[in-house]
């Protein structure tokens, strides 16, 4: 296997890692008010990701930077094509990122409420638009022979791409609720479990439609893609375990569903990186956008040396904060 293939896989891995980890962070952001009756509840929910979300977001940074280093042509065309969409993603991520910190410092319930609303909005908008962007890669966009994007903002809003966005937001909600059920106790946990149980069948339908649609859009023959099958089976199993109230299994399965959804898109994309609607001659592929062999070799060595260490200490941080949270820890009589 050539290094160009390796880097396509690594970038898929980084995007998958991002959505699996930040996916439940987004879910927690979306649900932190819905699953709570009062401020201690909200703090409990937010604190499940308190020590973790920042490290999770770095996966996106590294995915973007890896595209820049390994496939500069892909990075350049994609990021300029999705200009306004990515600007919105940045706004969403910024507002969401600071609202974790700022809402904790808010003095009045009203200010805290504003930061909470921004946290929710940011947590919906970011995965939705990133989903649209990923969907467009596969669905195809007008790309010129100079590899530059030749469409407008509205060309990005295609039905399939929008559906990918919806799928990711729906999955974040389910993934977040199984995560909260796993990380809390008492009423919050019960509400999270109830939500997971009720939402799971709907999410299963959304994911199934996504899997089939992806297969059709990719147009690679009738033979089903095993990853797409895995996504459908896993989401059905997730719904079953959520119904049974099995926290650990439900979360494991929503993790698998999220991973399978992202991986299926990348497997259908390969060896292209951006499909062109102007004919396959103008498709961006791993070979016509890649860096030189020296850079790829260098980055591979760096990745092999550093990534296992990163994975190890991130896993250790999860282990350190594995304990379930209880709202009594956040009942502070001096506030509210």
């Amino acid at each position, binding site marked *: 296997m050539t290094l160009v293939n390796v880097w396509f896989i690594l970038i898929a891995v980084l995007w998958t890692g991002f959505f699996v980890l930040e996916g439940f962070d987004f879910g927690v952001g979306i649900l932190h008010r819905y699953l709570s009756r009062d401020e201690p509840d909200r*703090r409990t929910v*937010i*604190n499940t990701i*308190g*020590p973790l*979300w*920042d*490290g999770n*977001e770095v996966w*996106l*940074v*590294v995915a*973007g*930077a*890896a*595209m*820049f*280093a*390994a*496939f*500069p*042509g892909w*990075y*350049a*065309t*994609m*990021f*300029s094509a999705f*200009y*306004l969409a*990515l*600007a919105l993603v*940045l*706004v969403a*991520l*910024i507002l969401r*990122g*600071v609202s*974790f*910190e*700022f809402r*904790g*410092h808010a003095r009045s319930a009203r200010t805290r409420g504003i930061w909470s609303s921004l946290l929710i909005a940011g947590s919906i908008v970011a995965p939705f638009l990133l989903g649209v962007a990923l969907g467009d890669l596969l669905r195809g966009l007008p790309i010129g022979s100079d*590899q*530059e994007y030749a469409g407008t*903002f509205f060309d990005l809003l295609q039905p399939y791409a929008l559906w990918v966005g919806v799928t990711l937001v729906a999955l974040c909600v389910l993934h977040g609720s199984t995560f909260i059920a796993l990380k809390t106790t008492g009423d919050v946990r019960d509400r999270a479990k109830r939500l997971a149980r009720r939402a799971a069948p709907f999410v299963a339908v959304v994911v199934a439609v996504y899997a089939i649609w992806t297969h059709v859009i990719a147009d690679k023959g009738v033979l089903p893609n095993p990853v797409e099958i895995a996504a459908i089976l896993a989401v059905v199993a997730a719904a079953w375990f959520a119904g049974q109230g099995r926290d650990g299994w439900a979360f494991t399965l929503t993790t698998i569903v999220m991973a399978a959804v992202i991986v299926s898109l990348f497997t259908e994309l390969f060896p292209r990186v951006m499909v062109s609607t102007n004919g396959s001659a103008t498709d961006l592929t791993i070979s016509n956008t890649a*860096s*030189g062999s*020296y*850079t790829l070799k*260098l*980055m591979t060595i*760096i990745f092999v040396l*550093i990534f296992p260490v*990163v994975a190890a*200490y991130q896993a250790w*941080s999860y282990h*350190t904060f594995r304990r379930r949270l209880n709202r009594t*820890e*956040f009942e502070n009589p001096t506030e509210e």
Partner: protein
Amino acid sequence: MSNVDLARLQFAMTSIYHFLFVPVTIGLGFLTAVLQTAWYRRGDEAYLRLTKFFGTLLVINIAVGVVTGLVQEFQFGMNWSAYSRLVGDIFGAPLAMEGLAAFFLEATFLGVWIFGWNRLPRRLHLATIWLVAIGAALSAAFIMAANSWMQHPVGYETNASTGRPQLNDIWAVMTNPVFLWGYAHVLLAALATAAVVMLAVSAWHLRRKSHVDVFGRSAKLSLAILVPTMFLAMFVGSELGVVEAKYQPMKIAAAEAQWETCQPCSFSAFQIGGGNDDQNPTKIIAIPHLLSLLATNHWNGQVIGLNELNAQYQQQYGPGDYVPNVFIQYWSMRVMAYAATLILFLGLWGLWLIHRGTLERSRRFLWLSVWAVLLPFIMNTAGWMLTENGRQPWLVQGIMRTTDGVSPSVGTSSIVVSLIVFFLLYLVLAIVDVVLMLRYSRRELPPAATEPAGEPPVPAAIQ
């Protein structure tokens, strides 16, 4: 305004803004680690209280620094796709290394540090703040390596069939003299910035006689770090000037508004008039030989003037104007140097007061120290304007012009919309951040007693 101007304006705005937070993160991360180490070693509760106090400021600052850093990384592809396409082979590699080797480290261990009080053994918990500080400093190394490559491209060959520069020697990129001196300069400036912030906050409390014993210590610590750091920063900065004069002579000649070649060359303290259309400004207080010394390290060194350099460049690269904006260049150099001098004098005054044993009582010094908090931010911003404006009209020195780097597929309206949105967003964030920083800077010290298990260390980091 053209797309290039708008994209430049956006890049200038977002990176100047981002770099208000970066030096504080790098420097304060290090200082907080020092404070916690002092507590760990000596068991003195005062240092624990200071660790938590300044740790809170660090965390608020990082919240904005991290999210604005995201914009920086996305912006290359969004606004500068032609640039990204041409040089991603080289420029992308340090960015990816930064994410992998530095940003993961900083972000992961910051979370562990904030929430790890009372949950980790003290020694391990101390290690986490050091890892945050190391991650932040390492992060700057990769970014500076990437930036230095734009100032002085090394370690590449041009692909004959595509015309694109391709990396062929990473060692050359990581030992680029512009990088080595520039990185040291940035680290020292960051440390000085954080030391001034710590001094200002301590002085504010000392003026109000609150916790004089505790804040007296942080004031002394900050001064002890500030003075040698500032000395070194100025020394390294002048060496960087010599290196840049060698590889980017235009940058240094423009910083002195030196239109004609001179030998020996004097340095003007300030000038009236000047700019690209005014080659004969009134220079006030010319210090003989100083420019020769700054640019070449020789008493009688020659500095080639802008007109001669421009003619050389026209011969080498074709017709065009290769002189950067001289007005910005001249003044950013002076604002940086004068702010640095003021900081240094303030630090020396503080050391003198410590020697006399009157630091905590000197109301005039304490009052000035509070307001001096603005100086390092002005100094840092001017320093970046000096280095980036001085690179113009090149995006990558000698390889690509700024006008050729912009995204061809992005329309003017898109850039305008995102520019306005980011401006408003950054304005709101700045207001909230300043309000919070002031509020927590003026707060009473947190109690030293160890809290019940599970409570975050710093008041309401994420509660």
